[in-house]
Every structure is written in C-alpha cells, then in structure tokens.
C-alpha cells in the first residue's frame, strides 16, 4: 500500500517535472521566436492570438471604425480588380501580395470571432481560427503593402484595402509588432530628443544658420529662416530629416516663402512634421500630432504650413479634427507656393531650367488629399519643358518613399 502511494507520488512528481520541462521548452521556443521579415522591438510574445482577437474586438467597438469596418468587411465581391492595380503584386505575383487576400486575412478573423455566421459555419463562410502563424503572416503582408490606395481607385465596390491594412497594422501595433524603424523614430519624438532624427535644438539652430549662409553663397541673396516669431501667419514645419538629406528643398522653400512675402516662422521647440504613427497606431498618431499643434499654439500662429512631405500633410489635415487639442488652418507648402505663383507674388524664371522635367504624384498628396494641380503649376512655372509621365494623378504608382521604403530598407537588411 505504502509502495503504491510512493509510486503515485513519484508519478505525480515525474509529471510535474515533465510539465516544467515542457514549459521551459515552450518558453525557449517563445524566446527564440524570430521575426524573419524585419526587426521588431519588445514584441508581445505570449497569448498573441487572444490579444490580437481582443484588440480587434476593441477596434470594432471604436466609434470611428466600427461601422466603417462593418461596411468594408462585408462588401468585397472578390473580383481581384485590386490585384491589377497593385504594383507590389504586379512585381512579385505572390499570393500574399494580392490586396483582397491581405484584407481577407483580417476579414477571416473578424468573421470567426465577431460574426454569428462565422462562429457557426467557420471556413464555409471564410472564417478561420487565428493561429500564431497567421499573425506572422499578417505582419509580413500588412507591411509589404505600401498603403498607396491605388487599388481603391479601381475597386468597383469602393472598398479601400489600404484602410484595412492600416487597421490590421494598428491591431498588430498593440502587440508591439511594428517595424523597429517606426518604433525607434516615434519613441525619439515622444520620449527622446523630440524628433525622428534625434537632432538637438542647438544643432537644429546651427543648421538653420548654415542653410542661410549656403543660400547667400549660392545666390547672393539674404534669405532668412525666421525662428520662434510669435504671431506669425504661418508655422512652417518639415520632416526633420529634410534638414539633413534634403537641404536643397528647404533652401528652395525658404526662398519661395521670402520672395512671395510670406509671414512665416519655424519653431525651435518642436520642428519635426514626420508622424509615423499614421502607419501603425492611432495613439502615437495623436500624441505626435498634438506636439506639432502645441508648437503652433505656443507661437500663436494662424496657420500651419507643412513641408513637401505627403504623409505629414495628410496626418495634420485629416486627423486634426479627430485627435487635435488645437485647430489651425493647414496647407502644404506646394499649395501655398502654387497660389503665390498664380497670384504673381512669386515669379520664377523657367528659362533657367532647360531640361525636360516631369512630376511623380505622391500617393498621400494626390489620392489622399487631392493635391494634383499645385505641384504642376510650380513645375510649369519653373521649367520650360514639362512633360507628364504615365500613369499619373490618381493612377500614379506609389513613390514608395514612406510606408514601403522604410519597411524595405529594414527588410533588405534582415533578409
């Protein structure tokens, strides 16, 4: 009897040991999880499936998304018109790059967990249990999409797969599943030095001085980069990386604004228009946007003028009413400049540029904001030979400078 009891206890002990070993093994597996597609900082490793499902549930209850998702997730006619418009799919011809397939990844989870038909009929109605591997597939798929919205232009049902991609990314973002490029940049903006390129205020001011000197050397004109001028009409704010890699653009902007007679200023407390929150998180979109608006409020300007950057303009124009603590009139610098050209306040000599010049419509400014003509007005005024390239305007292919480019650089370095 005693022997039997001992054997039982031994068995229990053995079972416990085995369980422990299994747990350690699983933990090791979890710790060893690799994200082969791109680098991710501090990803959530446990209960990813349940966290994903719960987060999607929260999004479905969110006022700004719930009916929109109800509409989009119930509308696709599976005609694949989007596939022929997707430059990514046209390049790779991989199933995961079909826009409708990508959206179906999210749709299948929605159906399985949040619709009666999906709960009852499962795969028959396109619903399926979410697996760990599906989450990995979604990370890959949602970040291969450039969110250029070219597919939306041709969707006979009016479904915008890019919005579903964004919502998918936002859900993944709650699990910290976002590319390191985005998370490092936004944490620098929100918790670090205050901008995506980690340029300290002193260095920024030095850069402005340097650019002024550079313009003087190049053109002989004294062109100012006014700073912290309270009560100015415009707060000009560009992606801070432009000060490092696109200095020509900024010098051109300063000259255009000065010669057009603009009353403008740059803020030295916050000087970065980049908002990568747009690509993966509403919370981060809102926090960064409000830093920009707070700077405009501090300087008591009337309007905000965003540099040439499309996504930066889109965030402020489209999300200010939703998330902003302050409200301002917002313009892209190309809209301002084109108006100055049209009104004759800014005169450009086109004979200086003798080469043939064209213009590649960026997705966010074009399809996203309807800014098609302003850049053409400027280019036509500045160059003798302007030619359109095709496809253009709403059918332009993604310039891939933002969403995809960032991702691709990481992707290429890790693959």
């Amino acid at each position, binding site marked *: 009897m005693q022997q039997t009891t001992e054997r039982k206890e031994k068995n229990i002990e053995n079972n416990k040991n085995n369980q422990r070993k299994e747990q350690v093994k699983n933990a090791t597996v979890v710790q060893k999880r690799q994200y082969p597609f791109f680098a991710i900082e501090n990803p959530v490793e446990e209960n990813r499936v349940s966290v994903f499902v719960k987060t999607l549930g929260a999004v479905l209850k969110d*006022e*700004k*998304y719930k*009916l*929109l998702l*109800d*509409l*989009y997730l*119930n*509308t*696709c*006619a*599976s*005609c*694949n*018109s*989007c*596939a*022929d*418009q997707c430059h990514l799919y046209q390049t790779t011809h991989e*199933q995961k790059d*079909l826009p*409708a*397939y990508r959206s*179906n990844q999210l749709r299948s989870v929605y159906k399985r967990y949040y619709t009666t*038909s999906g709960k009852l009929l499962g*795969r*028959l*109605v*396109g619903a399926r249990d979410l697996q760990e591997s599906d989450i990995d597939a979604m990370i890959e798929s949602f970040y291969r999409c450039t969110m250029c*919205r070219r597919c*939306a*232009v*041709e*969707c*006979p*049902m*009016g*479904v*915008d797969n890019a*919005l579903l991609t964004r919502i998918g990314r936002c859900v993944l973002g709650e699990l910290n599943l976002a590319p390191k490029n985005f998370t490092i940049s936004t944490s620098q903006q929100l918790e670090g030095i205050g901008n995506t390129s980690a340029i300290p205020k002193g260095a920024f001011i030095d850069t402005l001085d340097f650019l002024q000197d550079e313009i003087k050397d190049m053109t002989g004109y004294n062109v100012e980069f006014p700073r912290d001028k309270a009560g100015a009409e415009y707060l000009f704010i560009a992606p801070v990386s432009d000060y490092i890699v696109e200095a020509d653009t900024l010098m051109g902007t300063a000259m255009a604004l000065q010669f057009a007679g603009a009353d403008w200023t740059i803020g030295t407390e916050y000087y970065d228009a980049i908002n990568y929150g747009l690509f993966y998180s509403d919370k981060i979109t809102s926090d960064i946007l409000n830093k920009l608006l707070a700077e405009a409020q501090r300087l008591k300007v009337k309007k905000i003028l965003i540099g040439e950057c499309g996504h930066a303009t889109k965030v402020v*124009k*489209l*999300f200010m*009413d*939703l998330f902003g603590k302050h409200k301002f009139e917002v313009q892209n610098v190309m809209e301002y400049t084109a108006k100055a050209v049209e009104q004759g306040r800014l005169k450009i000599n086109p004979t200086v540029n003798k080469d043939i010049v064209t213009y590649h419509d960026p997705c966010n400014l*074009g*399809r*996203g*904001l*309807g800014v*098609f003509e302003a850049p053409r007005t400027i280019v036509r005024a500045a160059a003798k030979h302007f030619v359109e390239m095709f496809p253009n*305007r*709403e059918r332009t292919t993604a310039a891939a400078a933002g969403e995809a480019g960032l991702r691709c650089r990481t992707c290429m370095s890790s693959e």
Partner: protein
Amino acid sequence: MNIIGFLIGLVIPYLAVTVFAVSIFLRIKRWLMMPHLLKWSLYPMPLHYTGQIGYMLKEILSFKSVFRNNRSLWAGGWIFHIGMALIAFWFVTFVLGFHTGILLRIGLSILIIMPAYITLIRALNTKMRAISSPLEYFNLLIFMSIGILGILMITYAKPDPTIIRQYFIGMISLHPVRPPASPFFLSMLGITEFFMIYFPNSRTLHMVSKYFTFHKVSWEDHSA
C-alpha cells in the same frame, strides 16, 4: 397540399420577404448613421450629385472597373447580372399580365451558364482561387440551382402560367391561393426564399453597401 408545399408556398415567402426587407432596412439605417469621424477620402472624386450619379450608373451598368482589370471575370459577371435583371424584368411584366417566355428562358440559361463559368474562373485561376472562400462558390451554386430548376420546370413540368400568375398575385395582394404543385416550382421557390433570407447577411449585399463605401467614405470631400 402537403406540409412542405404549405410552408414553402404560403408561409416562408412572407417570412423571407420580411427578413429580407427588415435586414436590409436595418443595415441601411446602421450605415446611414455612420459618423464622419475618420476622414479617408479618395481623390479625385465627383463633387456634385450629377457627377456621382453618372459615375455610379456607369459603374453599375457597365462594371467598368472590372472590365479594365479582369476582362474574363467581367464577361461572366456582367452577363450574369444581365440575366438576373432579365428575370426580375420578366417577373414584373409577368405579374402585370404579360408572359414573355423567351426572356425567362434566356435569363434562366444565363443563370446556369455564367455562374458555372465564374466558378471555373475562380477554381482554375490561381489568383482568383486565392481570394475565393467556399461561400463564393456557394453563392454561385444558389443561382445555378435556380436556373437549372427553372429550365427543368419549363421544359418538363410545363405548368400553366395562369396558375403561377394567380399564385403570385394572391401572395402580393395578401390573399394567398394554393401554389402550383410542381416540385420544380416549389424547389425553385424554396431556394429563392432561402436566398432572400441569406442575402442581407452575406457579401452579396454589395448591391446596397456599395452606395455607402463611395458616398459615406471615399467621396466625403475634406480638401477645403
């Protein structure tokens, strides 16, 4: 009249029409209440009603986006929808007292051939197969079944059109009369009733939802 005939012929039609109408009404009401919180417009867009109606008509009547992007599917899809329109037209004229049998035959034949053709495209084309769930095939099967049963009924059962018309008029005027006893007719009616109940809860609702994706999202102009 047996119990199945009684249910399919007299009870479920009212139930199906009620579920169909109420479900669509609730969906429309829900989408009409959709707040414009998220600005997610797509440019360029037709800014005036005339332009919007023109765009919609062109899209609905010609399936121009599918024509540009997926010509083989367009051929099947467009003719398929024409077939459905022919049957709807036949039904209205039939109830009004005209019997254009040829229209019905053409419509039903299209309802067999085109869903079969689209099924093949979905099954054989890799990129179409990747985005087609069993539901897509099921939807096509429903239409094919209606078409097949209809043709069988016309060809073999040859029911008296006057009896069928009296039945429909009785149902519409809320003075139901005994349905035609043809098993083909009852089967076809049963599938149609099932479809009416199922339709508002499926993606075939795109006929209605399409209005909202354009008018309430893509065409909300925020550029000013």
